[in-house]
């Protein structure tokens, strides 16, 4: 009797241990949920005639933008993409129906066309707006026009072009990275905003603020986010891993040799420096850089070489901007780097790129700055030398 009970007891005990063991087994992998256009096919890019595209395609989370030369024929193009492994690509027709993608079929990109990626598990999908546009040289910006990102979280600056159209791919900021911190409840809580209030100089202006990234920022060792705005692209994928590589400065929107960068600003530095010594005072930065590019393989400037790269031809920078509380005019001459000259021949071949960079904390890229530092900028203008005519 006792022996039987004893055996029963042991069986029960081993069952419990076996149950614990089985339940902790690795289960079969679920099918993929992601549905991205991860890149434009490099083979397809290679196959394009030279002088068709300007610069690199900009692949965002829901858009792909190709910049083309002025007058390029975009009525029959068949772009090819790389997508998430296991996912499926579709054309989305004008009536909203989806048809399977094939590489042969051309589409008329006079207006943007839509593509859909469906995840491997079929439960998720994402529509991409694919557009081909001629980026017109940028002369001036009054920060009057903006849109919101796809999820409506933050403002994105629109550049009004010479023909009156609006282009969303000229300016960018680090707002997309700040969105991850969850610190902002409304678009106006972001570091980079475009607002109009009683302090306006002339309609809207750009307000760049250095803000705390809160608990989640400290989790990744990025305690602050400086308000920034620049000509180029912010690649949010790299915002946390390699923030200096996330800011891709510059576009080939150069009309002529730039003479000066003009505009209006005011600045207040925050009181407590993060990542620096207490004796330091935060400072803003406004500068423009003209640099050489290989039109066939455009490499932008990054956060760690935007003022030092060997391809730089000339720089205009504000230097010690102080803390004027009233709107103050600036006109910063482009100073040519020793050994460099501007060539109209290179200009015609698309061999120059320009960036304009503004930041509420000069060292913001290295997460040094004071929370509360606020830089306001309005009526920015590039003066060209008019030598190319």
């Amino acid at each position: 009797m006792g022996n039987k009970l004893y055996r029963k007891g042991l069986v029960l005990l081993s069952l419990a241990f076996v149950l614990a063991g089985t339940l902790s087994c690795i289960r079969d992998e679920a099918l993929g949920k992601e549905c991205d256009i991860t890149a434009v096919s490099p083979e397809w890019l290679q196959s394009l005639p030279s002088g068709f595209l300007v610069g690199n395609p900009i692949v965002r989370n829901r858009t792909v933008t190709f910049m083309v030369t002025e007058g390029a024929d975009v009525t029959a193009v068949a772009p090819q993409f790389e997508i998430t492994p296991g996912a499926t690509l579709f054309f989305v027709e004008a009536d909203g129906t989806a048809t399977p993608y094939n590489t042969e079929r051309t589409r008329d990109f006079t207006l943007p066309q839509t593509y859909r990626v469906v995840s491997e598990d079929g439960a998720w999908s994402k529509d991409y707006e694919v557009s081909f546009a001629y980026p017109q040289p940028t002369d001036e910006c009054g920060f009057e026009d903006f849109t919101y990102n796809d999820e409506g979280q933050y403002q994105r600056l629109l550049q009004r072009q010479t023909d009156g159209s609006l282009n969303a791919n000229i300016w960018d900021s680090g707002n997309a990275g700040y969105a991850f911190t969850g610190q902002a409840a409304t678009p106006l809580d972001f570091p980079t905003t475009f607002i109009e209030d009683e302090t306006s100089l002339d309609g809207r202006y750009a307000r760049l603020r250095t803000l705390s990234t809160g608990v989640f920022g400290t989790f990744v060792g990025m305690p602050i986010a400086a308000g920034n705005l620049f000509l180029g692209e912010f690649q949010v994928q790299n915002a946390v891993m390699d923030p200096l590589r996330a800011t891709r400065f510059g576009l080939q929107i150069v009309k002529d040799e730039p003479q000066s960068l003009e505009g209006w600003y005011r600045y207040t530095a925050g009181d407590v420096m993060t990542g620096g010594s207490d004796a330091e005072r935060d400072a803003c930065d406004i500068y423009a850089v003209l640099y050489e590019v290989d039109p066939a393989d455009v490499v932008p400037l990054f956060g760690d070489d935007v003022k030092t790269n060997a391809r730089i031809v000339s720089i205009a920078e504000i230097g010690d901007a102080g803390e004027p509380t009233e709107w103050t005019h600036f006109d910063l001459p482009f100073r040519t780097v020793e050994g460099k000259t501007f060539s109209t021949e290179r200009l015609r071949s698309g061999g120059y790129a320009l960036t304009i960079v503004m930041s509420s904390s000069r060292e913001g890229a290295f997460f040094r700055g004071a929370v509360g530092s606020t830089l306001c900028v309005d009526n920015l203008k590039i003066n060209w030398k008019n030598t190319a005519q």
Partner: protein
Amino acid sequence: MKTIRTSLTALLLSLAALSASAQDADSTRVAQPMPCCDLRPAFLQGWELSAGAGFQIGGTAPLPLPREIRDIKRYNPLLCLSLGLQAKKDLIDDGRWAVSLGLRFEQKGMKTKARVKGYHMEMTADDGGYMEGDWTGMVETHVRNSYLTLPLLAHLRLSGRWSVQVGPYVSLLLDGVFDGEAYDGYLRHHDPTGEKAYVTHATYDFSDDLRRWAWGVQVGAAYRASRHLEAEAQLDWGLSGIFPSHFTSVTFSLYPIYGRIGLNYVF
């Protein structure tokens, strides 16, 4: 940490006191199950007292393992100790069934390194920051919780030496650590279609969010090696997640499931 030290000291002191009184008792004992001149206070007459120490090994894990966990690269059980007292009383005269009430100081901890895919998490920080997304990459988790546990067990004697036990327990968290790192991966904001951000290294600490009370079921077996010495193997199956149900940073409930091997001194 201070609370642990205080409670440990208290526990050790009471153990020492008990063993001292047990030695007194020993000297007067005769070879009978129930000595005639028991020195224990009246309310403990008829109770068998024991004190023990042991090691615990196990995991604080979601059950079953969710599909998001793709690989467990490393598991380190950590050194987890338990120190306990137990008072046991026979229920009926045949000596087969007994009940016991215990008081145990114990640590339940582990360190794991796992690869996850599309692990959904939501976090609300003290400063109001809110983050939601799907993480794909490596996760290191470090848990070390100290509990004061009260088990109520039914004992069934199977033979002269063997017995099995089963019963519920409640635990009070004295001190808890739940932190770790997420690295070499990427986060998709909100859901699988959201913005993607690669992350080389991020840390997290949810120690302050741990649930204060826990409960579960204990099942085990004991072997009486000699009159005073007993060896035991126990399994504690936590039935309450270590985080409160409104806590969403870890999307699946984590249950502490720990085995214990220990020695008891029976007075």
